[in-house]
């Protein structure tokens, strides 16, 4: 009887510990978002979204910053999605399992944990200097693509792994080639997981500051980029720059910029959740 009571207490207290732990995260997030909204929401208006940077906080806008961020996002997506998905398919379906593939596998997993500023230094040397892209959008997009490639590769592989082998075997049994099996069976079944991984990776890329500063993204750009070779600035740099200004009005601008950036990130994550939900309903093994 006594023993039973003890276990019950432990059981209950673990439940409360779990609730408390969850609450810490949620409350901190709520405080953070609440205080940012309080500071910044009143500052967001059409002018803020369509104005060029300025020394006067009330005249300054984020046009070039968000335009730069979207350019960078789109270019990064174009570069990283084909490379990452193809590499994932190769490693999972074609690559032979030997020492070399083990080494590649370990390195890809490790790369996903390398601090982003290191990718910035790599990008500076390879894309900005050796390949002579300069501090352009293209150099930034290649650098960020490198940064998120490991995430996309890992997500692709995990999604492919989750496809039941019975589907694959059935396809082979019907006389399909390997490519036909991948194209018509595996990719459709794994698509939800792959898209979710891609979108989460891209939403990480859009929030990065360090690598784009290192490759030479600027703080003051009074024009919207017109081609991938143009110089650019992005939202996180604009926010970083405003936070370090003495005038309090710039801090409010930064809060407003953060709301926009958070909005974009939430939107991307929302799309990811939606994809996953839709796919789960369609693909039923």
């Amino acid at each position, binding site marked *: 009887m006594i023993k039973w009571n003890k276990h019950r207490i432990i059981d209950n207290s673990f439940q409360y510990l779990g609730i408390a732990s969850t609450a810490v995260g949620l409350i901190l997030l709520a405080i953070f978002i609440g205080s940012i909204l309080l500071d910044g929401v009143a500052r967001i208006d059409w002018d803020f979204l369509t104005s*060029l*940077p*300025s*020394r006067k906080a009330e005249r300054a806008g984020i*046009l070039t910053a968000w*335009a730069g961020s*979207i*350019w960078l*996002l*789109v270019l990064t*997506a*174009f570069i990283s*999605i084909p490379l990452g998905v193809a590499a994932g398919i190769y490693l999972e379906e074609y690559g032979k399992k030997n020492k070399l593939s083990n080494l590649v596998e370990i390195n890809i997993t490790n790369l996903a944990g390398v601090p982003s500023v290191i990718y910035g230094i790599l990008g500076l040397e390879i894309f900005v200097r050796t390949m002579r892209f*300069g*501090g352009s959008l293209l150099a930034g997009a290649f650098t960020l693509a490198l940064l998120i490639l490991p995430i996309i590769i890992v997500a692709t592989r995990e999604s492919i792994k989750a496809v039941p082998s019975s589907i694959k075997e059935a396809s082979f049994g019907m006389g399909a080639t390997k490519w036909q099996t991948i194209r018509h069976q595996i*990719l*459709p079944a794994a*698509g939800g997981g792959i*898209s979710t991984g891609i979108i989460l990776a891209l939403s990480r890329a859009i929030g990065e500051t360090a690598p784009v*500063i290192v490759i*030479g*993204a*600027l*703080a*003051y*750009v*009074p*024009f*919207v*980029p*017109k081609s991938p070779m143009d*110089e650019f600035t992005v939202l996180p740099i604009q926010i970083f*720059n405003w*936070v*370090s*200004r*003495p*005038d*309090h009005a710039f*801090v409010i601008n930064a809060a407003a910029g953060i709301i926009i950036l958070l909005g974009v990130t939430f939107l991307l994550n929302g799309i990811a959740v939606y*994809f996953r939900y839709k*796919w789960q309903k*369609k*693909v039923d093994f």
Partner: protein
Amino acid sequence: MNKHILISILAINFAIFIGCNSSDQNTTSNTESSGTINIDGSSTVYPITEAIAEEFRSVESKVRVTIGISGTGGGFKKFARGETVISDASRPIKPSEAEACKENNIQYIELTVAYDGLAVVVNPANDWAQSLTKEELKKIWEPEAQETITKWNQVNAQFPDEEFSLLGPGTASGTFDYFTEAIVGESGSSRGDYMPSEDDHVLVQGVAGDKYALGFFGLAYFQENADKLRLVAVDGGNGPVLPSIETVKNGTYAPLSRPIFIYVNNEGAKRPEVVKFVEFYLQEAAGLVTDVGYIPLPDSEYQAQLEKFKQFVNTAN
């Protein structure tokens, strides 16, 4: 299924692409035959250059000025490679950096554009430290003070027997380099047990909330927060002096005021839009520098810098 999703992603991307393109045509429709002026360097000088670039837009709308914040050292690296024509600098160029410029055959001119003062601040409730000598500041901040000098009365016997807390910019900042060089005598040499923050607002809050705190940062931050903090007069050997526009301008607030610079290279001096920009910079600086919290040079000095630049342009062409 997979195809549909991929197509829809591509479609969204294209829509964004096209949306982007149409919006730039509206905003930058008159940029044909424009020159681009690439500037990078110190984040201390950035607000001034930004203000000038902004005003320059209304004079020469076709010229595109871009400004980065790689720091003085990072800026000079690009400058020495010829990647920028103008470099913002919160200290004079180092011999090694000058050497790098020479190797790439880059000649340049140094132009002083403003003064920056460092403010030593305490809590308004602090009624003892009205002024500190350079030696007292050194005693507080030098590396040997770490864990041994911790109380106000160790600095000056008349101060209270209370522990102080120290706040200052992080070791990566130019302000930290400058303070340690001016006070301790060697750039970057400081005790490690102070509270560093790259965010000056944190420093302001820290000093404003602690009666026994002492901190330092750029004078511009004090002016924004004058109601929460009190300035300490600094005695550099000729009696205590409070920092103000006058004392920084006439050099009596020593050693904690410094000139800040822009560097222009000879390639820039050959391009009319760069020459125009630099001339505009020196002509308009007096007003705009005050706007962004720095201290302007005397008018005659701007005139002298302008003459110096014109000579450089003549020899470069």
